[in-house]
């Protein structure tokens, strides 16, 4: 997902009886559907895992602006350009909501930024793929935002209050993102032969990377089990991936496009599609920083941070000067 392979304590889930009274009260509150708020007591592992998860999610929103920003100056019409600008601005907003939520756990914004820029903290594998045609803007909105929604909708019920509230805001806006993507795909798929070919090509390239967004099967993962007990992960990776394929396959049919998977077939018995797994070796390579655009993305973020430094400092200096002048006048 936007947060992939997030590690928790690594110790596995403990039963209520094994917990001290404080942790037990914490877990019982979560089990009863209660929310944990910033000043409440929480286990160290819960705090650390959430910082990793929300931080990674925030970084994904920020880095996720880059593949789409690539097309702002080249959008085919003024209307498409305005829409894409609005969408990319939303992504920046989503990153900010999430950074705020993470900060309530005691990590600073600068620390998170530093960890992104140094490569210590990750962002979603999907943003390490290039967007080489306009149809990719359609595929990204339709598939990438579509996959993100699968994960984000249930996270509105996550146990950590600030995270849940950020998700509510994000989900409200995310639907626009997916629809604008599908709208581009419809236009291309029903357009000239060349436009249709571009749409199909975009689907071909983004299908498996989109399936990878959910992460490898975590049915056996102790990290996922702990995260689910804490309700900071609401569904297994396989569950969400299945749901995504079940919703997306008929949409591809509607577009008259072919999902690049010869094993994709409706399975009446399970009430869902059978489909091929993505290449997990490729996924792990991308996570390690060996994706097609991994170096470029981090370079871009680092350059933006370095070149923006004088602006950040000038604004702070200006604010200090104004404050001093105001004090002197009093």
């Amino acid at each position, binding site marked *: 997902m936007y947060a992939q392979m997030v590690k928790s304590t690594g110790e596995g889930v403990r039963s209520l009886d094994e917990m001290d009274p404080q942790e037990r009260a914490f877990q019982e509150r979560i089990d009863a559907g209660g929310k944990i708020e910033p000043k409440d007591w929480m286990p160290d592992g819960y705090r650390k895992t959430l910082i990793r998860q929300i931080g990674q999610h925030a970084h994904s929103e920020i880095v996720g602006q880059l593949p789409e920003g690539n097309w702002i100056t080249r959008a085919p019409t003024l209307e498409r350009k305005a829409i894409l600008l609005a969408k990319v601005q939303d992504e920046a907003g989503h990153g900010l*909501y999430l950074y705020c939520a993470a900060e309530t756990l005691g990590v600073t914004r600068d620390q998170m930024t530093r960890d992104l820029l140094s490569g210590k903290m990750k962002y979603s594998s999907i943003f390490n793929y290039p967007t080489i045609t306009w149809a990719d803007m359609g595929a990204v909105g339709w598939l990438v935002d579509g996959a993100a929604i699968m994960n984000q909708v249930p996270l509105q019920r996550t146990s950590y209050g600030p995270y849940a509230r*950020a998700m509510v805001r994000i989900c409200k806006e995310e639907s626009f993102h997916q629809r604008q993507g599908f709208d581009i795909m419809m236009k291309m798929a029903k357009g000239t032969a060349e436009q249709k070919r571009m749409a199909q090509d975009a689907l071909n390239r983004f299908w498996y990377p989109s399936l990878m967004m959910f992460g490898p099967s975590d049915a056996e993962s102790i990290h996922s089990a702990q995260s689910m007990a804490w309700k900071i992960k609401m569904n297994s990776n396989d569950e969400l991936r299945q749901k995504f394929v079940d919703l997306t396959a008929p949409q591809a049919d509607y577009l008259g496009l072919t999902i690049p998977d010869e094993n994709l077939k409706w399975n009446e018995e399970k009430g869902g599609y059978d489909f091929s797994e993505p290449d997990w070796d490729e996924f792990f390579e991308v996570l390690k920083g060996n994706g097609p655009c991994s170096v470029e993305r981090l370079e871009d973020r680092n350059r933006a941070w370095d070149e923006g430094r004088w602006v950040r*400092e000038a604004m702070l200096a200006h604010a200090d000067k104004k404050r001093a002048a105001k004090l002197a006048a009093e």
Partner: protein
Amino acid sequence: MSSPESSAYKATEAAPHDVVRRTEWPLYEIFIRGQHGLSHRHVGSLHAPDAERAMQNARDVYTRRKEGVSIWVVEASKITASSPDDKGHMYDPADDKVYRHPTFFDIPEEVGTM
């Protein structure tokens, strides 16, 4: 947020660079009043160098879709909040004062709506 390290631009007169810089812009909490006559409600926070800039940023971050008609920005460090440990003595006394709720009193039906 400002840069984590001291500035590379030593020639500027804006601030002394031989001292450790403040590393981040201060945090502001943002409150927005919606359109339907409700009170201001906390929507989130953001970093800004000063209140004016916080206001501009709040407009961009929290009201891109006409979510509100009025914004308050408050520096987070200026807020005094109750502590979860005080929950007991702050709120429990309300438990045994159920007569504060109108449903505590039985009003005969023939009296009508009250």
